[in-house]
């Protein structure tokens, strides 16, 4: 067996093992644990696709909240039934074609992703004429514009009230299915000639262009693809939490993803996955600091609401100051690496 087939089988086996764990979780885990597992998968999808543009291509942008919002709103408007829409839209009735459409979940998710990708594609034209810090601020502005529009376009988004009563279709199979598909597609892309071109653009755009790489087209491709997956993740998110409003898609969302990909290591898919898991889990653990703590029934420490974000901000600054490479730097997990590590351990004994 060549190492390549061995690695492929190991990957299949670990995916099977993951599915087994999910099956067990479906059966035995309580609602709260299932919710965290769902959030982990959505964070993985978001972080890996955000990392494609920020880490792999090196185009520092701050817009995922816009694409998540686009996907979430599109899919929710498509799955909500006509009567539910009539009930929610109390200030302005929903505009005509949307008010009667109601389609199944899967096409709604895909259309959500496509709408996000379409906007990503359109946005790419002005956005990639600028570089560096300007790119960051323009994409940040794009996110804000989408949010402001969602707040004001009463007859489509129901304004600040948002959408309620979205069917809770998202379960472990949907969320982890999307996470696995995202991982597969982006991993293959990064390893292909396109991926090498994207990395070349990150390292030195001028040099890449002089080697015949059309930097603009490659950036646009990466941006559109990451928008597509972020849109679908947004659709799943909406059908997980069942209520969405423009407040949900502020810069906070982007900031969380930024923490994940920088802690994981900009440019490393493995790093993004690990950091997404750590983040989703850690933010649940840190809930403790926001709730009153009782030590042995004697002493009660009052909880400090908002303390979690303070801690995350400090973590981000500390990582940037002292460990700029994050967990993984630009390295990736490989089976070979694992075998090498085990081998060293064996010979050490």
């Amino acid at each position, binding site marked *: 067996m060549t190492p390549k087939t061995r690695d492929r089988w190991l990957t299949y086996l670990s995916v099977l093992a993951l599915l087994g764990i999910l099956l067990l979780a479906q059966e035995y885990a309580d609602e709260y644990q299932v919710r965290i597992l769902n959030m982990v998968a959505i964070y993985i999808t978001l972080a890996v696709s955000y990392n494609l543009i920020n880490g792999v291509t090196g185009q520092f942008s701050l817009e995922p909240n816009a694409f998540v919002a686009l996907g979430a709103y599109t899919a929710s408007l498509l799955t909500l039934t006509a009567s539910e829409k009539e009930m929610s839209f109390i200030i302005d009735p929903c505009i005509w074609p949307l008010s009667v459409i109601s389609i199944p979940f899967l096409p709604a998710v895909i259309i959500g992703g496509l709408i996000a990708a379409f906007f990503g594609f359109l946005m790419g034209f002005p956005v990639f004429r600028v570089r560096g*810090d300007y790119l960051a*601020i323009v994409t940040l502005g794009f996110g804000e*514009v989408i949010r402001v529009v969602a707040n004001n376009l009463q007859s489509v988004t129901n304004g600040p009230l948002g959408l309620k009563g979205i069917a809770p279709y998202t379960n472990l199979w949907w969320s982890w299915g999307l996470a696995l598909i995202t991982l597969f597609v982006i991993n293959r892309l990064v390893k292909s000639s396109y991926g090498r071109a994207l990395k070349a653009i990150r390292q030195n755009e001028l040099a890449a262009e002089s080697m015949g790489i059309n930097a603009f087209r490659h950036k646009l491709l990466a941006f559109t693809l990451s928008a597509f997956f972020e849109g679908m993740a947004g659709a799943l998110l909406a059908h997980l939490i069942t209520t969405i409003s423009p407040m949900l898609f502020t810069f906070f969302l982007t*900031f969380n993803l930024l923490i994940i990909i920088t802690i994981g290591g900009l440019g490393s898919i493995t790093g993004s996955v690990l950091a997404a898991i750590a983040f989703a889990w850690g933010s649940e653990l840190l809930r403790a600091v926001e709730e009153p703590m009782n030590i042995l029934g004697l002493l009660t420490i009052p909880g400090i609401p908002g303390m979690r974000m*303070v801690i995350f901000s400090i973590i*981000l*600054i500390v990582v940037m100051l002292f460990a700029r490479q994050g967990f993984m730097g630009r390295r990736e997990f490989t089976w070979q690496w694992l075998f090498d590590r085990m081998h060293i351990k064996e010979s050490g004994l």
Partner: protein
Amino acid sequence: MTFQLFIQQLINGISLGTLYGLIAIGYTMVYGILRLINFAHADVMMMSTYFAFFGISMFALPWWVAAIIAMILTALLGIMIDQGAYRPLRRAPRISALITAIGVSFLLENLGLVIFGSRPKAFFRPEIFRPVWQFGKIHVLSLSVYTIFITLILLVFVYIIIYRARIGMAMRAVSRDMQTVPLMGIDVNRVIAFTFGMGSALAAAGGILWAMKYPQIEPLMGIFPGLKAFVAAVLGGIGNVFGAVIGGFILGITEILLVAFFPELSGYRDAFAFLLLILVLLFRPTGIMGEELPE
């Protein structure tokens, strides 16, 4: 719309524009020297309003004493942020400093939420800023007019510091060529610290006037003025101090007139600045007064 109403809105627009301009100076000076978008600048401005608030309400200081103390404290805060968070990253890739700046911005906002609470606090509007002046049919809040004068006085100081003082000459030199300047015996780090201090103090002045204009403060109040001030800085040509002020005027006036002429678009007011930014970057990336910057 009558001519009187137009003039009235124009004065409001100029007064808003001067505030954007005051905040934008801090962005543009830091960017000119470090090529860093100081995301925390807007939140430094927010902190200044709380300094002034506590000066007035807890220590019962006269408002102008509180304002001056707040400006000094804000300048110190700006310098501390630079020395603590940005200085270790001077030689790192620029993106690292940018991410750190976003982290500092979030830290200040969330510390604000934890310490001051998310409920807005009413800000004190001094007696002399309260009357509404009437010229014929034009009604103007005296604060709007005073804001323009205070800004002009501050701009004279800025001009003297940048173009007439030694430290200003050093600042201009550092923004031209950071590698050569230390060879001339200039302490670059001191120049950068001074830049942060000066930018933060001006942001404090802008922030306090802002808080008197919309007389309430809350920990997230800096976000939109900050983003718009940055747009103003880009509009005027980033790195150019007086360009930032002019960019602020343009943004403030167009924003107010847009809302005055098309009231139905007022909800989109916050999106307008970004559309303007995208247009400027597409057609004249160096801004109105900017020079060509080498990559």
